[in-house]
């Protein structure tokens, strides 16, 4: 029992099949992995391998009727639906999905308003988050006035506002250019360190996965299953180790594993 509780996320024999007009499409097959508390784990796989389906299943959002699920997912011992309703999951999507009619500040405040916190408490939390994200001077800005990276930072702040157990990130920096992406990678590690959250990060980029995570889950192509789990044994901050041979070794290993998985 103890063992289960120290693990925030467990996926056990997870299989998902889409049934549409008597056609069966198996997207996920027998997926097994676990994420420990306060761990940073990345999921990488060929495009169209069902990463987003997996993401949706873990997020606990209502699935379509055509999707048949076997196996189980547990988040802190709860079903994803329960975890979602208990506000244990913070979603950060590919697009920042901010509301333009609210300022940066009140975008971060949105979940707190919905939960029903008092105004002083909301302000206090938002102030702290703005400081953490280094966005204090942009508090009164409209989201479109910010750059893509900063918009994504606001959406991270919004997810952190209600203090969820697990942060789910679905290629959050996919739309950014190389330089900004690296900058955001460094910042997300910083935020992770300061907030002690468990993060599950879906990405397309091998380098990003190695740079960020302690563990990389490599998925095969459809119907996808876990091909290999690579433990990245590099110290943080990663900025200091990017030029070491060990770092390159991990990148090569991940690339080779991904190539095998795609075959």
């Amino acid at each position, binding site marked *: 029992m103890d063992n289960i509780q120290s693990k925030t996320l467990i996926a056990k024999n997870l299989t998902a099949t889409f049934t549409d007009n008597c056609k069966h499409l198996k997207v996920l097959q027998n997926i097994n992995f676990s994420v420990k508390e306060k761990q940073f784990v990345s999921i990488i796989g060929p495009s169209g391998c069902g990463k987003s389906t997996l993401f949706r299943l873990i997020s606990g959002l209502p699935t379509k009727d055509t999707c048949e699920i076997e196996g189980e997912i547990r988040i802190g011992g709860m079903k994803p639906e329960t975890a*979602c309703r*208990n*506000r244990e999951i913070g*979603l950060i999507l590919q697009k920042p999905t*901010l509301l*333009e009619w609210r300022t940066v500040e009140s975008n971060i405040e949105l*979940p707190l308003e*919905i*939960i029903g916190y008092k105004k002083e408490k909301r302000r206090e939390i938002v102030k702290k988050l703005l400081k953490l994200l280094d966005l204090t001077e942009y508090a009164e800005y409209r989201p479109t006035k910010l750059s893509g990276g900063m918009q994504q930072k606001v959406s991270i702040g919004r997810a952190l506002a209600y203090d969820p157990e697990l942060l789910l990130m679905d290629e959050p920096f996919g739309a950014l250019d190389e330089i900004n992406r690296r900058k955001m990678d460094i910042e997300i590690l910083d935020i992770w360190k300061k907030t002690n959250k468990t993060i599950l990060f879906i990405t397309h980029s091998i380098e990003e996965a190695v740079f960020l995570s302690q563990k990389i889950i490599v998925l095969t192509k459809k119907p996808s299953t876990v091909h290999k789990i690579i433990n990245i044994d590099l110290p943080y901050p990663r900025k200091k180790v990017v030029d070491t041979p060990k770092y390159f070794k991990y990148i090569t290993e991940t690339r080779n594993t991904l190539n095998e998985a795609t075959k």
Partner: protein
Amino acid sequence: MRYLKKHKEKKRKASMKRPRWSFFLVQIRKTLLTILVISLILLIWEYLINKYQIPKRILPKPTDLLEFFKKEFLMKHSLRYKTVLDKSLKSFSDAFIGFTLALLIGSTLGILLSKNKLTYTIFFPFLFLLQLIPVPAFAPVIATMLGYGYTTKILIVVLFTIFPITITVRNTIINIPEDYNNLLYTYGSTKIETFKKLILPSIIPSLLSVMKIVCTASIVATIITELPLSVIGGIGKDIYNSFNNQMIPRVWVSVMIISLISLLFFKTISYLEKYINQTYRYGQYTI
């Protein structure tokens, strides 16, 4: 930050070149030009009618209109007499009531239709039928049921304008990106909260733009219904009677006045739309 400074610098320079009141100069020039064109048209009109001796009951001259105008507005009438302006305003106020009702009922229907497919499949054919039937032609049918009264008039205005409102509201709600709904779901949002925080702000811009289309339509509907219905007080009825009595200048002036009111109504809503969209930025997302 550097960019911001540069931007401010640019703005400052631009405002130095052109003084603030230059905006009014442009506006005045525009207005003068419009007045000039209109007076030119009036002059040509007067000249052509004089030249070809067209009788007043077919096409009145601008001076005939002016004469009627003087008689109607500058001379003293009995207290019970209502000028064409009073009657136009009465028609406008009825149109406005119909317009407001159509907005309320139409948006509510749009929200209901967006909720699930079943309500949509049940109610949409009826709504579409409303759009297919020429409502003014349908007016007598309603009149026989509800009588030739005020209720019929308002009901017809509502029927005439409700369809675009409902469809716009429904489509806007359906087109809200799914990600936003998902996010609010993870915040544990109730249906009422989602409506308040996401749906309501999202429909405001499209509602404003459909209001622009519907506002003039509501006036048209009022006038049309006044023609066959004997509801007193409206300008439609007055136009109908004046036409039958060959008081053609009166018809012309009435048409001009109601058009002007229509224009003002439209302009007010346009301005409102521009102001609200620029200030509050409702219904805009970061994509």
